[in-house]
């Protein structure tokens, strides 16, 4: 059906109205990050002002911002790499060599994701404390790996399922072992799928707030926790807060935009395609 011109104009206006309204808080944060602290709290709110980069230059003066960035990178990429390394052989086995337990196994893996974090807060806190893993990157990497593992396994599994089994079989006939099959056949074919699984896992652990807030203090605080800490003094730090937040959010927003379609697959466990 060819929509009428007038209809298209109305839909465009409505669509853009909705888009801008939803994006407004993010846009306002970015705008505020270029204001002076005085402009940031001006009434009426300023849409036009002399932009300054001062907040970005000073972001590190409010604490160890660079340290928090490094913690976020180490935790999210570390846990993702570990998660994929663990999940890849399992997803490969279940996708190409299913047996009568495969479905139950997959559903059990999925069910481990349903455990509410707060339900096991006390034991995890106490275990972390007694093993000296409280407020360490290692501790948080371990938790994020385990928390995201079910999603990683499922996503990899659905991507692997799309590869014709014959290709794997052929390479097996040629004498390739499991690891060689993964390296020579699977990686090139499922590369994009593995990449988007990795991106989603990075996004999830970068933005994770429950464990980050409760298990870190000074040393291992990633950006999610760090930004809370430096907003607590009720001073006029909102322009700096906005600059710090903008930097923390920007890379993940780009990742999110890149991986939006696969995200549906990953977070609905393949049930919505």
């Amino acid at each position: 059906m060819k929509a009428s011109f007038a209809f298209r104009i109305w839909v465009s206006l409505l669509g853009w109205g909705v888009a801008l309204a939803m994006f407004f808080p993010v846009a306002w944060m970015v705008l505020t990050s270029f204001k002076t602290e005085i402009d940031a709290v001006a009434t009426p709110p300023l849409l036009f002002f002399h932009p300054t980069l001062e907040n970005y230059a000073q972001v590190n003066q409010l604490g160890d911002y660079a340290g928090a960035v490094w913690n976020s990178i180490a935790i999210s990429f570390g846990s993702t790499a570990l998660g994929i390394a663990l999940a890849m052989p399992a997803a490969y086995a279940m996708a190409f060599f299913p047996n009568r337990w495969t479905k139950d196994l997959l559903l059990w893996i999925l069910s481990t994701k349903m455990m509410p974090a707060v339900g096991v807060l006390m034991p995890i806190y106490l275990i972390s404390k007694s093993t000296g893993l409280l407020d360490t990157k290692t501790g948080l990497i371990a938790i994020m790996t385990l928390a995201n593992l079910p999603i990683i396994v499922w996503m990899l599994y659905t991507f692997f399922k799309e590869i014709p089994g014959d290709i794997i079989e052929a390479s097996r006939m040629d004498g390739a072992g499991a690891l060689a099959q993964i390296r020579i056949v699977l990686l090139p074919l499922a590369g994009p799928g593995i990449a988007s699984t990795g991106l989603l896992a990075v996004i999830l652990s970068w933005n994770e707030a429950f464990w980050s807030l409760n298990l870190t203090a000074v040393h291992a605080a990633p950006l999610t926790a760090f930004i809370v800490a430096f907003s607590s003094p009720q001073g006029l730090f909102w322009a700096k807060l906005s600059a710090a937040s903008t930097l923390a959010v920007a890379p993940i927003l780009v990742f999110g935009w890149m991986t939006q379609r696969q995200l549906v697959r990953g977070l609905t466990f393949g049930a919505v395609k």
Partner: protein
Amino acid sequence: MSATQTLVPHRNAKLMRTWPLLTPVVFVLLVWAIVPLVMTLWFSFQRYNLVDPTITGFAGVDNYKFLLEDPAMLAALFNEVVLVGSVLAITIVFGVAFAILFDQEFWGRSVARLLVIAPFFVMPTVSALIWKNLLMNPVSGVFAWITTKLGFGAIDWFTNYPMAGIVIIVAWQWIPFATLILLTAMQSLDREQMEAARMDAARGPQLLRFVILPHLARPISILLMIETIFLLAVFAEIFITTSGGPGDATTTLTYLIYLRALVNFDVGGASAGGVLAIILANIIAFFLVRTIARNVDI
């Protein structure tokens, strides 16, 4: 045996030993799923407080009794239901509307879509801080300025309407997720079926009721369950905006357990609450896993 063979794409599958490949994942997830759960159960029957080592011993069901008789508990359950229920309702309504809207062709649609889904990728602590300090602040916030212009005066959200404030923030984060999933589902709606319905002079509301909503029923039910699992766990938004207050106006079950655990260090009480949270989440999880099991061909 024959059923197995139709599932198995390779004749020699049985020759492939898969357990070495599966063991690492199964082992770590087994430990992750069982050890903390057993510990929570164990602690929930103990007198155990980290700040008072004189409190020891077996508590029987005292922690549960205390928990269930605590008026804060009832309030927390009520708040949890209000928060989760409101956000679910808002995200489904807006999600369906936005999915239909962004399924239409219009100028710059792909860019507009990116803007709509953006909030989902903003870390929860940053979302809460932006809304609290830049938008909902009663003195310098954008909303205060707008409501004053409109003649309502400045609203101090987190003092007067704390739960509504949190619901707005959380809904803003989850509408993009609902939109994205329902939009994906919309795109699998058969265009010819839509056309046929249109030819039969089905107008907007009829199209919605007889074609679009039935098609979206399954994705919506999946969405409801997944969102519920995540929304029961909402923490950072409350932690940052109201810390559960004023009074216990925004203390949900999750937040109450956190307070018992890491503010009062009441291991026994927090664990009893934890068991309750696990049971609640598992009721939803049961239906979610069952639905996914039906929908995914393995």
